[in-house]
């Protein structure tokens, strides 16, 4: 009986030492301080800015005429996207939607129609990825909206692809 007690006490001491508990320790109690994470960034801001830029680029490209004239209906699509995104942002912020277009907002037109079309394809690809990436992270309504916009952008690439 005594031997069992000695063994049990030894085992307890060994276990405590393994766990880092000792009555002779002088270290203070460990405190974990968690820094509050910054508030999540609303993806709408980035998506709206990107859509506005792409719309302006499409408009600038369409102004070249010729083969770039087919960018005009695509610019209208992007403008619709921009309006819807602004409306959605205003809905969640309980504010008035910002205007989609403002006087003086322009970008320099591309050097040629081919460059404009190439730029439009690149922009559509980038935007499609950006909207698709957010589908899993947002509310149901926004997910459906983003999926629809991403699908539209895919069709833009199809329309602009060389036949």
């Amino acid at each position, binding site marked *: 009986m005594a031997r069992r007690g000695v063994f049990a006490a030894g085992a307890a001491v060994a276990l405590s030492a393994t766990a880092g508990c000792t009555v002779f320790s002088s270290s203070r109690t460990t405190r974990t301080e968690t820094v509050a994470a910054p508030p999540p960034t609303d993806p709408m801001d980035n998506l709206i800015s990107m859509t506005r830029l792409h719309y302006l680029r499409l408009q600038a490209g369409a102004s070249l005429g010729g083969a770039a004239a087919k960018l005009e*209906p*695509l610019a*209208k*699509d992007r403008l*619709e*996207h921009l309006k*819807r995104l602004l409306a959605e942002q205003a809905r969640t912020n309980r504010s008035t939607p910002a205007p989609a277009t403002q006087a003086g907002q322009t970008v320099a037109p591309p050097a040629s129609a081919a460059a404009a079309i190439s730029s439009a394809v690149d922009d559509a690809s980038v935007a*499609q990825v950006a909207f*698709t990436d957010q*589908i*899993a992270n947002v*509310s*149901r*309504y926004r*997910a*459906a*909206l*983003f*999926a*629809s*916009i*991403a*699908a*539209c952008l*895919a*069709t*833009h*690439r*199809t*329309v602009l*692809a*060389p*036949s």
Partner: protein
Amino acid sequence: MEESTAVSSKRVSRPAGRRAQVQASGTDTVGSEPIGSDPAGASGPVGSGPVGSAAVGSGAVGSGAAGSGPPGPPVGPPEPPSAGDAGSSTPATESGMGAGSGAATSQAPPEVSVGPQSPESAQPMPLDKTATTAVQTALRTENAAIWAYALVAASDKDDIAVTGSMVAAHRVRRDATAGLLVAAKQEAPPPAPAYRVPKVSNQAQARELAIQIESDCAAAWRNVVGSTDNADLRRLAAQVLLETANRLVRWRQLAKADPVTVAFPGER
């Protein structure tokens, strides 16, 4: 509502106990639920916004032709002449239908890919009630699309290869969607014997019908995206919506529609 009810009484025979799959001609939509019968579109945030208004069955394309005259549905054989068979034996000429990127490639093979998110290859996806209803509606729409494409093929001989490849894509999607439901231990609604569609007697009408078919499918899959919080299901439905939108634009190009693109595919 009256028109829908009246036309619903003209439904062709269908198995008892099934939900309505034969669309009222007054709504001018191919093979989907009657208006207002889709719980997925009427609940949650989706139903309160534009997505809910895009519920399948509100048919926007060719609404003028649908309600006029007697219904011209081929109510004959349960499975009309298969356009998919015709398409499978002819080279595909459509472009931009690739699953995934949606980019056009003129030498692309017939579109039969279901993408990397194929439900068959994935783990069973848990589906809540709302998502299940939305996916079942999408499956019904795919069934209707396969059926209706046979009419397109019959009246549009010039685009037989395009039609065939698109039917093949819808068949693959239908099977994948049914597999998704079965894996989730949910009912996969079987196809209806026939569907009520607008009269199709020439190439222009056939292309209009094809546009309507793809519009319905886009609306159905957009509804799936907005009916679930499951990220995998959202991605899958978004991918299908993308493919459907490309098919829609392809038909709008053939029909010389202006504009060719649609700002919000699947929304009505």
